[in-house]
């Protein structure tokens, strides 16, 4: 399972049997490696990664920082955008070898359905094309060139924005490709990147770094990505000590473990657990549109099996449409079954299956208690019920007749969706209030007269992203991730104050 050897810079050894799941600056050598076997439809593949200790991490950080100072630090932001855009453009070619590699290996590593992964990855990478990168930059910064030089600010002086020399990124594995977002933001503020990837999906950040190398090897040398087991303190302490900023994706457990280790003076951004919900208005359940609304609802549940923080866990459905909420639940169940046939769910762990079982039986018991039949459709939707997939725990629809009876808007995930009937969408909001700390995405299917009034209300509730039902898992370029700023939160501003320029002028020989 392990082998010693020397690899320079971690080039992709893709002879189909061994794939490197790490990236390091050219010239950096690791002394020993381990491998993990995965099974793909084309046979077994070994994922190779370096053996690490704190010294290796320190050396890696040194190298990345030095390369960053030599090249990236002085690169105009427009040039960085160009490099990233060209690297991403490579991924728009279906035959691009790294894309092919990702499409082959990511499903095998994560268990996600291959077709779903292929489609979602394709969509995802397109979010980082040139015109989209401009959104990230221009949305946060009134004058992006402030990243390059002192530019006039609105208070009469000049401002220059400095990103961290080195940022340490802890990537999660729940949704393939997410590290690309975090790496892109780091590079746009001219930060060297040391990324800790997860063994549950170590590939995408590495492949993205390789694509950058194809376009601009020097820029790629300001990046290192290595996997290790989360919670390995010597490695994490080393990386946190070296970095000027720490960005963590993952469960609250992960972020709470790391947060105390980061000095107060360093930016610490964490993207943790969230509960997504959606609001389905009666107008979206008209005879001419209910089918597509329900399809979109199912997509929000099926995509990456709700493992993304963006996913819907509870849907509030308004009474008064052509379809009643309990009928909507029933049709949603059918649609989830058809999603299951197209894009089968990944295999959950025993604990995950048990959690679903427990949730199902608890609602069944509520239903029996209320005099219903437990499972299957309720006759009139007046009591809670469960619709369970014909096989195992593939998908589950839990139905509650009113918001008051909803015990929790959080789902055991893996395609378990709660449908709550409400007389008015506004009735959903008080129920969500106690969960403010976990709120983020809210899918909506309402007409244009209601959109902004509703957005106003859910914004007050703590939501930071409102999107169409069906798009919940696909955040758009420039989104203020968890309500923060993608670039601004990473930089520090230096002002040359108003008058300093005039004062400097006063020392000119021919100053008047």
């Amino acid at each position, binding site marked *: 399972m392990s082998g010693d050897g020397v690899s320079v810079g971690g080039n992709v050894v893709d002879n189909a049997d061994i794939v490197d799941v790490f990236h390091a600056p050219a010239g950096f050598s690791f002394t020993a490696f381990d491998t993990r076997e995965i099974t793909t439809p084309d046979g077994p593949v070994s994922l190779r990664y370096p053996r690490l200790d704190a010294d290796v991490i320190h050396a890696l950080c040194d190298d990345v920082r030095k390369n960053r100072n030599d090249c990236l630090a002085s690169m105009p932001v427009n040039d960085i955008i160009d490099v990233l855009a060209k690297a991403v453009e490579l991924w728009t070619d279906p035959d691009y070898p790294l894309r092919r590699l990702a499409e082959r290996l990511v499903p095998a590593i994560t268990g996600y359905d291959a077709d779903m992964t292929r489609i979602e990855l394709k969509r995802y990478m397109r979010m980082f094309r040139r015109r989209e990168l401009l959104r990230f930059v221009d949305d946060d910064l009134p004058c992006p060139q402030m990243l390059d030089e002192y530019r006039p600010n609105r208070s009469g002086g000049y401002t220059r924005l400095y990103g961290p020399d080195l940022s340490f990124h802890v990537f*999660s594995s729940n949704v393939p490709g997410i590290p690309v977002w975090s790496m892109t933001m780091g590079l746009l503020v001219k930060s060297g990147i040391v990324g800790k990837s997860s063994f549950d999906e170590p590939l995408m950040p590495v492949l993205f770094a390789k694509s950058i190398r194809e376009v601009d090897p020097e820029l790629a040398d300001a990046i290192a990505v290595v996997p290790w087991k989360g919670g390995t303190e010597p490695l994490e302490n080393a990386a946190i000590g070296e970095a000027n900023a720490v960005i963590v994706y993952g469960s609250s457990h992960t972020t709470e473990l790391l947060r105390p280790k980061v000095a107060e003076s360093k930016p610490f951004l964490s993207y943790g657990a969230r509960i997504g919900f959606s609001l389905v208005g009666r107008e979206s359940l008209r005879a001419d549109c209910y089918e597509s609304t329900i399809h979109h609802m199912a997509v929000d549940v099926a995509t990456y099996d709700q493992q993304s923080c963006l996913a819907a866990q509870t849907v509030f459905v308004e009474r008064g449409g052509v379809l009643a909420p309990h009928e909507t639940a029933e049709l949603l169940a059918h649609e989830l079954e058809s999603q299951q046939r197209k894009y089968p769910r990944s295999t959950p762990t*025993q604990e995950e299956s048990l959690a679903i079982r427990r949730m199902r039986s608890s609602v069944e018991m509520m239903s*029996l208690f209320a005099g219903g*039949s437990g499972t299957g459709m309720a006759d009139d939707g007046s009591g809670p019920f469960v619709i369970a997939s014909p*096989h195992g725990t593939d998908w589950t629809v839990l139905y509650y007749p009113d918001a008051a009876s909803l015990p929790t808007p959080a789902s*055991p995930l893996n395609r378990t969706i709660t449908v709550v009937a409400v007389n008015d969408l506004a009735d959903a909001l008080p129920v969500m209030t106690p969960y403010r700390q976990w709120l983020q995405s809210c899918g909506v299917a309402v007409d244009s007269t209601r959109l902004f009034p509703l957005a106003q209300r859910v914004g007050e509730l703590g939501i930071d992203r409102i999107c169409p039902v069906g798009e919940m898992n696909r955040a758009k370029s420039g989104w203020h991730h968890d309500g923060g700023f993608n670039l601004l939160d990473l930089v520090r501003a230096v002002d040359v104050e108003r008058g300093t320029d005039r004062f400097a002028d006063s020392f000119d020989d021919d100053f008047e």
Partner: protein
Amino acid sequence: MPIQPAVSPARETVKQAVLDFIDRYGCEQAPDEEFDRLARLIFAFQFANNVPYRAYCTSKRVTPPTLDSWSSIPPMPVDGFKMLTLTSTPEADCEAVFTTSGTTRPGQKGRNFHPDLEVWDASMIGPFRHFILPDRERIRIGVISPAWDMNEHSSLSRYLTRALEQCGAEGSDYFFHEQGLEFDRIERFLEQAVTDDVPVMLMGASSAYWYLLEHLRESGRTFVLPDDSRLFDTGGFKSTKTGITVDDMYAMFADVFGVDRTHCVNMYGMTELSSQIYDQNLLSYYTDGSVNTLKATPAWVRSVMLDPQTLTPVADGETGVIAHYDLANWNSCLAILTEDLGVRSADGYRLLGRAKGAEARGCSITVDEVMAANA
């Protein structure tokens, strides 16, 4: 409306059939046909008279006429015992109702209704003698958990009292009263056993041992109890303060009481059942000198490990969630689905304890985390 069977077996017929089965097979392996025959009779009785259970079975599309085997009887999730009134005899006609301590979700206690305790008592005593006292009729017993007179809604209290009444030798006593554990009297009880050189058995909830050990550690007392002494615990050592494992606990037992692993025995019981399940090490020790700590059931109980995904049985050696088919549970539901995990091998099964909550793989959040944070 769910289909009603034409006739329900009479209550007395069902109860007598269960008593006969217990009497006939004891802790032997009953023939599958016999187990199946009685399971069907009880199921038909429960289906006809236990309204919420009938609704549940109907929703699972299982009725007595369509039942193919006892193992297809839908196991009632333990949650059902909390929320529903699961009885085939009107509540008012039930002599006893046992309730769970309700520690997992305060305020919601599981309830098991018993029209009378004849079957319960019969189900208790045989296996107790078989698995706990294979070498003798009686033993000097010290009970260190609340007895029947303190809590008549606790099946464990009834169990401990029955054990002492039926199998306690002279000098047996209860050591748990209103103020809690009577440490001084327990110490004297143990001293006396050493002085008399008479084997004793302590019996109580696993958590009671924790308090007792803590006390003895403070007072610095240790004992070397006479040969054949035994320590009986139930409930498991989980959730009590530290991350102490069963092995740690039994190692401490050896140090403090001088009782080896061979003589420490765990009983697996649930309020929702009417029978108990035992470690086999005392039995195997006195039979052939081996130490088989795997669990075994009497003839009228079958524990099945199910795949949590599909709720179909897993192969031996694979972990599954445990469903119990307990024919002595003739009034409520004979089949129950636990939240415990277990793994079976040829000689019995190992209880792995309650399934831990699922943790989300990434930045999504699961019910358990939200519940934990809001608790």
